[in-house]
């Protein structure tokens, strides 16, 4: 297991380098220079000052040198300072926005896992039943619904019409006066809709995959054997079949991490949640390049970590890898 872990982590290094190369390339696609926005619109900046800024950001050097310098700072986790008026370090800005995004995404993953697998299993054990047909319909509609649209409708229905849940932000105005327990509940009330809505797409997709995997596993000889030796149907489904059907699902959950993080732009913008997705949207609109680069790299790194965790749980569940 230790050697597997080492190999698996070593595989991440070239990917990390690749991530930085693509991020760097994307930013330098832009016509003109990253500092143009700061200099061109500012009449007070002289040509001399502009030249100084170019030197400060190493824009006077060839691209590969610029990349090398940026990469060297990146290794020290120095993403530079934001172009925005506060001029704060990029890493600090990202770190203060990350917890709420991670909380929403991890909760969504939990919702996805807890709902998708039972849905898929029940559908697979009763193929073509009413339940199976209803779930299939739900899966297709859920998978085809634009998340931002459903969020708007949910906001209006649960927030405005019924008044059950708050429709924006992450805390109420009287947050300071609440006890810790009430604070927790307050967060939860604000985050319920974003969490449920952001889990919908992956949830439907995953329950479909679970159903397909279960149907395939149930056709296997060892399931017939388990039934033949007199196992109860419950034991056949949950002990013999599900365990094997779950393996590929763990990997797919890992693969859904980038979609969840990407989706956070939409859900955080709709619900005005000050997380990483909203920060990214703001930084992109303001062409705050250091911040855009920082979030791209950190977003991709989160995916790497998600995939690593998925692969490790796969290894733990699959004896062929655990002892291999």
């Amino acid at each position: 297991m230790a050697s597997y872990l080492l190999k698996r982590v070593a595989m991440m290094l070239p990917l990390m380098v690749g991530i930085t190369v693509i991020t760097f390339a994307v930013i330098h696609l832009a016509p003109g220079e990253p500092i143009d926005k700061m200099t061109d619109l500012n009449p007070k900046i002289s040509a001399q000052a502009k030249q100084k800024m170019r030197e400060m950001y190493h824009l006077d050097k060839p691209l590969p040198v610029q990349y090398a310098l940026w990469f060297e700072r990146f290794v020290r986790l120095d993403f530079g300072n934001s172009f925005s008026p506060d001029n704060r370090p990029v890493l600090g800005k990202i770190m203060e926005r990350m917890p709420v995004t991670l909380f929403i995404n991890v909760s969504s993953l939990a919702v996805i896992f807890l709902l998708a697998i039972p849905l898929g299993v029940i559908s697979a054990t009763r193929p073509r039943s009413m339940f199976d047909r209803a779930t299939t319909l739900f899966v297709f509609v859920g998978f085809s619904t634009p998340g931002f649209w459903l969020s708007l409708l949910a906001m209006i229905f649960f927030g405005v019409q019924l008044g059950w849940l708050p429709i924006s932000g992450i805390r109420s105005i009287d947050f300071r006066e609440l006890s810790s327990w009430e604070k927790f509940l307050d967060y939860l009330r604000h985050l319920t809709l974003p969490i449920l809505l952001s889990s919908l797409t992956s949830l439907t997709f995953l329950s479909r995959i679970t159903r397909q995997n279960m149907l395939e596993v149930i056709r296997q000889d060892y399931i017939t054997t388990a039934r033949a030796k007199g196992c109860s149907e419950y034991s056949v489904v949950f002990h013999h079949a599900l365990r094997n059907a779950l393996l590929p699902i763990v990997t797919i959950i890992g693969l859904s991490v980038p979609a969840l993080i990407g989706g956070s732009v939409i859900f955080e913008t709709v619900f005005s949640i000050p997380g990483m997705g909203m920060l990214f949207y703001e930084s992109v609109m303001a062409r705050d390049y250091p911040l855009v680069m920082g979030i791209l790299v950190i977003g991709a790194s989160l995916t790497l970590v998600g995939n690593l965790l998925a692969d490790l749980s796969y290894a733990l569940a699959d004896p062929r890898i655990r002892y291999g």
Partner: protein
Amino acid sequence: MAEAGPRVGGRSASFASIVARRMLKNPFALWGGAVVVLLFLVAALAHFISPYDPSAVDTGIILRPPGAGHWLGTDELGRDVLSRMIYGARISLMVGFVSIGIATVIGVIIGAVSGYYGGMTDEIMMRFVDVMLTFPVFFLILAVIAILEPNIVNVMIVIGLTGWMGVARLVRAEFLSIKERDFVVAVRSIGQRDALIIFKHILPNAMAPVLVSATLGVAGAILTESALSFLGIGVQPPTPSWGSILTEGKNYIEFAWWLSLFPGLAILFTVLGYNLLGEALRDALDARIN
């Protein structure tokens, strides 16, 4: 789709007729196909069937609810929502097809070269695919479009450039198995050029999964475009896109529900249509199911 030619995926005509028969028997395929055909007609005939000019402003009838004259109501500038949605169908269709066309071409070339040549070429290309897959794609799309310039051409190109990885993996897997087959060994032994073997002999046999993934891909691209337009960095006004009608309607959602409901439903049904069609196609092309 599948019944279009006498040869599907290079297999014999009888396979094509089996696929066609399976599609016609599948209610998913029929519903999905109906939606897709309807959408094509609406987009093609937009000029003739739309009751008003989609950008005709009439301040006398702003935010009029659905009723006679304006079946789906009017927006904040008094424009007819139905007419704007009919023209919006063109945008969705164009974005879906052009971006997935780009993604499919890139994916097929990278997957084919990777699978056919193997070795170092394969290793490098597949690591590139891995890197691309670690990015939250929506972040990447957002960054590139905002940096370049938000317009429909860039939207299509960027969705295409960030959506080819799945196709590449599919095609590579097909190539890995097909290139070992006897007929490939045979054409190679008579000294055919690699390009000819790849595109004429192997590729037609590897197209079935590509067709499925492209159909599902169109659905995804339409969703992405609508999300981008919703965030204001997709199709720019005054061009009507379903996503941008939604954005404009967002501010009036509490009293002008029709601006938010109808474009969303249009996106939902279109995407659903392509997803149903894609799934039906997958089942029909699956040789294991009889």
